[in-house]
């Protein structure tokens, strides 16, 4: 079988109302990679993710996901949109939310199908929320809500996970738990995660993609543990921009 990149972006440019948001982006993401997309607010991180999903169309350039156009590849993609847009008081229970991941799979009305329920149960077990399946969304903690949204993406039975700010507004301990879950999922899935966290990334991320109109890719390397433990109370890696960029800035 021919080797195939999960995501291949070539010469991509995107403008919003004539204002350039992303310019000449080239990016390849391979199978079972864990890629962290960072950059300042308004730098184009979410835009890059939406281009990968086909929700936005590039002005120039090509985006290929599993060798197909992003729109056609969607059945293989699990997506977690930005959490802050959701209404925390929405009257909906855990099972209903996970089952949203099964929409678009054939029959769409009438009682839920058995295979949909089974996929939902499996996804809930995988994120450790099965015992909460009858709870309402508003009674879950912030960390549980994030895991639920990941379960919803898993219910799509994807090969690629695209996560937009999954750790926003979480405290460090909960964030660490979430990363642990993602690390396990990474054993079978390719993961692309957007976050505006600073350049400190946890230990298992392989590559960091810096997005600020242009895109630069950096490997991660270990930093002195004692300093980081002192600062963050956990092991982290530091991104080495200097290797790739003469002025030491993430462009």
């Amino acid at each position, binding site marked *: 079988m021919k080797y195939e990149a999960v995501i291949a972006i070539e010469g991509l440019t995107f403008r919003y109302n004539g204002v350039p948001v992303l310019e000449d982006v080239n990016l390849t993401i391979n199978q079972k990679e864990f890629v962290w997309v960072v950059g300042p607010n308004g730098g184009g991180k979410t835009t890059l993710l939406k281009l990968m999903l086909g929700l936005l169309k590039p002005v120039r350039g090509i985006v290929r996901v599993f060798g197909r156009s992003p729109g056609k590849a969607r059945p293989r993609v699990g997506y977690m949109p930005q959490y802050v847009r959701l209404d925390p008081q929405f009257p909906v229970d855990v099972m209903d939310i996970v*089952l949203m*991941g099964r929409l*678009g799979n054939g029959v*769409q*009305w009438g009682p839920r199908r058995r295979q949909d329920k089974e996929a939902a149960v499996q996804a809930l077990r995988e994120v450790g929320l099965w015992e909460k399946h009858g709870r309402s969304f508003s009674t879950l903690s912030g960390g549980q809500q994030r895991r639920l949204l990941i379960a919803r993406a898993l219910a799509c039975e994807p090969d690629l996970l695209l996560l937009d700010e999954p750790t926003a507004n979480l405290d460090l301990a909960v964030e660490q738990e979430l990363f642990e879950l993602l690390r396990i999922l990474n054993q079978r899935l390719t993961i692309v995660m957007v976050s505006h966290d600073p350049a400190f990334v946890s230990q298992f991320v392989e590559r960091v993609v810096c997005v600020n109109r242009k895109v630069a890719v950096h490997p991660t390397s270990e930093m002195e543990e004692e300093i980081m433990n002192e600062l963050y109370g956990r092991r982290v890696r530091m991104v080495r921009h200097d290797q790739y960029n003469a002025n030491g800035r993430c462009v």
Partner: protein
Amino acid sequence: MNEFFEAVVQHRFMLNALLTGILASVACGVVGTYVVTRRITYLAGGIAHSVLGGMGVAYYLAQVHDFKSIHPMHGAVAAALLAAVLIGLVSLRAKQREDTVIGALWAIGMAVGIIFISATPGYNENLMSYLFGNILLVSSGDLWLIAGLDVLVVAVGLLFYNQFLAVCFDEEFARVRGINIEFYYLLLLCLTALTVVILVTVVGIVMVIALLTLPAAVAGHFSKTLWQTMLLATFCSVLFTVFGLGISYSPNLPSGATIIVVAGAAYLGVAISARLAKVRRS
């Protein structure tokens, strides 16, 4: 209240009023829940007010040009659906100017209605009943039309429950799952339009928004899921309309306004006690 229930047994018009209230409550429970969770109350307000345009034109055609088969309710249905599609397309296409355009359609609809009603000779007491509702004037023919709309709205609203739930909760995710967001958004607005027409007969154009949203808002405090909210909202709406009708009967208060005051008081009561309970817990 006893006097009211005696009147229901004795007078056909009181029975019609009661049945209208109950029928309206079912549509209101299902569609109102979507409107509240999808946060399109303002759009529903625009649709409700543009209904007057259709009612005015229909009333004018029936009286002046002698189209006896045209009833104001027909004009209301047409205007509501037209407004729903227009407002829906505007809100999908022109994100920045959405509120301006809805406000304009809101006022233009009313203006057209007022012009046609004033151009129609005779006493225009109809204008008042369109604006503020007169559930006591519902004829048996109206009741059949309301029942038909009710069945349609509730059937479509429940048939696409899963899609509407996904679209109301998280539109972007639903779009990625291949749900046609635009279609379901317009469909939801059309259901809202038909529900508005049903509710206009109960409380009139001006107060429709309260009856559409308050039962769902009250129900939302006690429900874990969307369908529970719908059931409870329907129940609340029946309670508000029947109770409002009942207490308005003997002192001869305007029924629509009384229903709204009852609904508003219940909503405030629930909202305040929920707030107090939260403060006490923390």
